[in-house]
């Protein structure tokens, strides 16, 4: 044992990865040079399991959680934008790109500026005449033609006086009416009832006609009331018949008392305008058209009275439904919120953060416990400070690499965020690199380099509910051609983990590093554990593992263990050194718990 032999440094690596820190001041973190090492809920670091290819599924360019699963828009060749959501059990969408659901393309269904929907049948979304896709809303119909009927059928009322009739289209799929027609021709009845002849139904899922009338004697100057359904106020297209030689007809009659308390005929069912984004909050659908936000009538998917519009100061880049009654709207320079207030219009908008925004929809996502994460020049989380909304830039101040990211992102290589609920990681990706933050502890994983594990750049991500397991982080990769490949985060067959400790620095002290003790966990007995010494910041030329190539370098057992002692006898390294450990995992529990260096110390004379 040499003179002055002592413990030099000890690292437990409890602080995660920190690169935005001065070298030489120590710390229990993973330093630059570390790779594919993760912080876990146990406080131990673990080798990344690497991405797992989700076989048989296709990815998207943007993702949405909907209908207990995930949907997306876009292909490798064509980017996606817009919204996909579920309302009234209908998969509803707007924007651009191929519509995908649960990792499969819905054949022939492309999003456009038209708010559209497709109905699920037999557990699948398959296009067809009865399933769609259909367009939200209906065109106002022509008025009906009405005829006096001298011989009312049983159960009908004889009526006397002037009347008119209104009609409107209704779809039983979404319950959506059209605006009511203009009034029919006028009839002056005398002990008669009315045969109503309706025009052709539309092919936009209409299968019902709504019927409205005036009080008897009020003809077209009267108020239009919805005829109660109990007396024929709705007739199915299939139930129309020929009566007295009149085709496409139904017979109706009413008394003025029947109209007591009846609703007025629909006068707010304006079909939706062209839009870029849409969504639903509680019972109300909204649609954003270049900054004009049309608020739908509660309960309807295609009723957008123009007077219900709200305004945002710029076009949107993305929307995030942040929980019941709150949806965050991201522009390039402003962040706002749509929130549910009830009544009509049921939704209001307010800008909450000025001079901050995102460039691409993938830049924002819902993170741990539903918090809102956004790339605003670097990763942030939005939070409330009293009654003010603000972005917490301290969220990512441990990672210096983010400083260089903004200039590298493009529409085809966006900075992509997603949440992995299994490991509780908020993941930030650029190209084929992932920085993940273990949300409960606020500590960062070492950067994950997935270059040799994926087919292209990461373009979108989404948490996916795996029944009985939890919400896994899925992401898609694009190489600009072919299909988008889908991967599950941190579920693969292992990676090559590198952990470089912080610098142990005694400045004016020299001495030798004579011994490195380490404890860790191995998940295999096939791959060596390489332990090298980085002396005097010389990252490019670490001192070789003294056991390099020796059988003792490879664990003989799996699980927690002390790795074979290294005796590097690194001359003059004791004053300033770090340790670099390289382990190859096979997808199990593999990591480093503790590293200790020993050696001699000598004071260096300074003048």
């Amino acid at each position, binding site marked *: 044992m040499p003179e002055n032999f002592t413990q030099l440094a000890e690292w437990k690596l409890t602080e995660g990865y920190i690169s935005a820190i001065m070298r030489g001041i120590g710390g229990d973190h993973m330093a630059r040079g570390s790779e594919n090492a993760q912080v876990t809920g146990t406080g131990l670091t673990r080798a990344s399991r690497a991405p797992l290819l989700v076989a048989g599924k296709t990815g998207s360019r943007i993702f949405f959680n909907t209908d207990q699963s995930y949907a997306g828009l876009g292909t490798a060749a064509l980017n996606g934008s817009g919204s996909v959501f579920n309302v009234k059990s209908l998969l509803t969408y707007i924007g651009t790109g191929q519509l995908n659901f649960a990792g499969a393309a819905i054949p022939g269904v*492309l999003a*456009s*500026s*038209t708010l*559209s929907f497709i109905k699920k049948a037999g557990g699948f979304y398959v296009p067809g*005449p009865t399933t769609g*896709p259909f*367009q939200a*809303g209906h*065109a*106002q119909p*022509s*008025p009906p033609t009405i005829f006096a009927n001298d011989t009312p059928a049983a159960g009908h009322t004889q009526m*006397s*006086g*002037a009347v008119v009739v209104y009609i409107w289209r209704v779809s039983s799929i979404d319950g959506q009416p059209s*605006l009511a027609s*203009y*009034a029919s*021709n*006028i009839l*002056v009845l005398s002990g008669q009832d009315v045969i109503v002849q309706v*025009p*052709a139904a*539309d*092919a*936009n899922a209409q299968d019902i006609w709504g019927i409205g009338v005036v009080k008897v004697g009020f*003809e*077209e100057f009267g108020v239009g009331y919805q005829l109660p359904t109990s007396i024929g106020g709705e007739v199915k297209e299939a139930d129309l018949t020929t009566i007295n030689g009149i*085709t496409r007809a139904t017979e109706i009659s009413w008394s003025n008392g029947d109209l007591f308390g009846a609703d007025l005929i629909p006068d707010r069912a*304006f*079909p939706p*305008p*062209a839009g870029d984004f849409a969504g639903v909050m509680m019972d109300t659908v909204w649609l954003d058209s270049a*900054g*004009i936000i049309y608020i739908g009538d509660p309960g309807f998917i295609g009723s957008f009275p*123009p*007077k219900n519009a*709200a*305004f945002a*100061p710029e076009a949107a880049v993305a929307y995030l439904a*942040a*929980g*019941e*009654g*709150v949806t965050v709207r991201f522009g390039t320079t402003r962040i706002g*919120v749509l*929130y*549910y*207030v009830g009544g009509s219009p049921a939704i*209001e*908008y*307010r*800008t909450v953060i000025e001079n901050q925004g995102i460039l691409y929809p993938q830049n924002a996502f819902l993170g741990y416990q*539903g918090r*809102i994460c956004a790339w605003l020049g670097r990763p942030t989380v939005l*939070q*409330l400070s009293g*009654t003010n*909304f603000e972005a917490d830039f301290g969220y990512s101040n441990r990672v210096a690499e983010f400083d260089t990211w903004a200039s590298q992102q493009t529409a085809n290589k966006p900075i992509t965020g997603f949440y992995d609920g299994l490991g509780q990681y908020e993941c930030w990706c650029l190209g084929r690199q992932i920085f993940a933050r273990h949300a409960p502890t606020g500590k960062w994983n070492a950067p994950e380099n997935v270059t040799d594990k994926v087919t292209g750049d990461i373009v979108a991500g989404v948490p996916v509910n795996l029944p009985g397991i939890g919400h896994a982080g899925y992401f898609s990769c694009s190489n600009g051609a072919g299909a988008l490949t889908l991967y599950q985060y941190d579920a693969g067959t292992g990676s090559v983990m590198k952990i470089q400790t912080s610098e142990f620095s005694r400045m004016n002290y020299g001495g030798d590093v004579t011994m490195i003790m380490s404890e860790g966990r191995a998940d295999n007995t096939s791959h060596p554990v390489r332990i090298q010494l980085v002396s005097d910041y010389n990252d490019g030329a670490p001192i070789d593992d003294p056991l390099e190539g020796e059988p003792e370098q490879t664990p003989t057992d799996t699980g927690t263990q002390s790795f074979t002692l290294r005796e590097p006898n690194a001359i003059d390294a004791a004053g300033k050194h770090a340790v670099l450990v390289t382990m190859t995992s096979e997808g199990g529990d593999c990591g480093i718990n503790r590293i200790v260096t020993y050696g001699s110390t000598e004071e260096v004379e300074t003048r």
Partner: protein
Amino acid sequence: MSQQMLDVLLAPESRQKAAEEQEQLRKVYGDRIVTDPALVTFYWGKQLENSVLQQLQPDDFSEDGQHLLQRLSDAYAAQARFTEAAEFAASDEQKETYRKYAAAIAHAGERQCSCPSVIKYPLKDNAKGLQLESLGDVLRVFDGERVFTLRACRHCGAISAFVNA
């Protein structure tokens, strides 16, 4: 988090702030909102046309294909392109109706019948009866340039079109 956000947003002072912002923005963007149902329907029809054309395959005679052609007819009708709407309409009655509308628009401003301009309906309790203009509104449509009101004669059913000011 979302509940906390909602609580803050629903506070009276926050809603006041939102209302003030909306007032400002409405001044700037308010005139971009289309409020005329004829124009709203026109733009909706244009979207529907684009959407259908995206899905339509050439020579598709299947049920799906026929359904798409009906939707295309709806789309053209919403844009006051009644000649094209008639071409793809599913029923002869609908084709006939659209042709009448198209003819009326082609002769906009001209009444398509020579019936009296007033129609009288006898009423039991009013010796004068009910006296109305003989043309009743059927539809207001926009063709991308002009808004037309289609009106039906209460005497003979002829459809005429008139350009709205």
